[in-house]
């Protein structure tokens, strides 16, 4: 059983979003919303559209994303860490199973509604692994709920273009086991340095960060 499976049976850890979805009665979910994605626009701004980049998407696979990323990268890795996590005896080991790019370090990474859903002790491990997998100057996009609300709903984001996206609720409300506050994000992302941050409605924030050289 992987680390996530064990967490399901560990009351102290609570429940990751979506892990128990099939065990709960289905409820009607709010309709998807289209919204601006200025952080995504900032992420891709200035990248050469020659397919030379390497993209790591830590969210669910989406055809729109392949289309859009395909402008910049011919090799795109999709690894949904929440709903389809890599296997390992613990979180750090699972992250080690996150493969490097076959030809070059990743230089564009997207983390959708992910960091705030990890346990606080898991967050630095993810950033550390991303630092190992990425090139100096790599670009990191993060969207998180920094509202501090006691419950949040797992979200899925689908890009419509490089500055617009659709936000879909994909599960019932979940206890926010450890809210990620804005003041923590900058420190958490090191060695990535936040270049720009954008406040969206509903307590969501986008961060565009770049990896410091050396």
């Amino acid at each position, binding site marked *: 059983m992987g680390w996530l499976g064990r967490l399901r049976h560990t009351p102290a850890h609570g429940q990751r979003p979506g892990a128990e979805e099939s065990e709960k009665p289905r409820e009607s979910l*709010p*309709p*998807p*919303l*289209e*919204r*601006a994605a*200025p952080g995504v*626009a*900032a992420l891709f*701004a*200035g990248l050469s*559209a020659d397919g030379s980049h390497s993209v790591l998407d830590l969210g*669910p*696979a989406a*055809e*729109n994303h*392949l*289309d*859009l990323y*395909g*402008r910049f990268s*011919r*090799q*795109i*890795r*999709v690894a*949904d860490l929440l709903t389809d996590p890599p296997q390992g005896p613990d979180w750090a080991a699972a992250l080690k199973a996150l493969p490097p790019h076959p030809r070059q370090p990743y230089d564009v990474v997207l983390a959708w509604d992910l960091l705030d859903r990890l346990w606080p002790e898991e967050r630095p491990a993810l950033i550390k692994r991303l630092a190992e997998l990425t090139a100096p100057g790599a670009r990191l996009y993060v969207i998180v*709920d*920094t*509202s*501090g*609300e*006691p*419950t*949040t*709903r797992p979200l899925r984001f*689908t890009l*419509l*273009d*490089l*500055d617009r996206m659709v*936000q*879909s*609720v994909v599960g019932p409300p979940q206890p926010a086991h450890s809210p990620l*506050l*804005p*003041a923590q994000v*900058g420190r958490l992302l090191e060695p990535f*340095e*936040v*270049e*720009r*941050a*954008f*406040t969206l*409605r*509903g*307590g969501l*924030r986008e961060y565009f960060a770049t990896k410091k050289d050396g």
Partner: protein
Amino acid sequence: MWKKDEAMPDTPREVEVPRRPEASRSTPSAPTGRAVIGPSIMIHGEVTGDEDLLIQGNVDGSVDLEEHALTVGAEGRVKANIKARVITVEGEVEGDLRARDQVVLRSDARVKGDITAPRVVLEDGANFRGLVDMGDANKASAAAGKTSQPSVSKPNPSGTASSGADTKASEATPTSSATAAPGRANRSAKDDTSSGPVSKAMS
């Protein structure tokens, strides 16, 4: 230290995620004019052939059809590297997929492995984990037409965020965003659209 937080004209509205109209998005095809590995068949080893193939059973090994189409049906479970002209997955595959023309993952597909193809179709709901390698950009453009260069406008960074917000700001405090947020559990389309322009959460 990061640059100043930027408030955006974020006016959400209800939408449906658009789907590309594609001929290849037809409903799962009927098993006509091709060989079939039925649901009760289990194969360990190498599968090769000179005709199209539908796999509804279990295959563990490798599948090489080169010039033909392979479909892993909804009941198909394949643990193998697959090579074919067109690969369509409706069931489960664990292995690498290499297609000369395209790979199609239908909505119920579950694939763990790397995909190499000039064109990849991912239907909504398809579960994929791995690397997508669309090969050389020029070749892909020729093979896939507009697919590799979607007819959407290119990003305009200056138009998406106020350039004046690029100045450095002090570290954020959580108070403003926390008080402004209705919380995801209570968010709805109405809540979002009825709100006024977003104010800066940090100053």
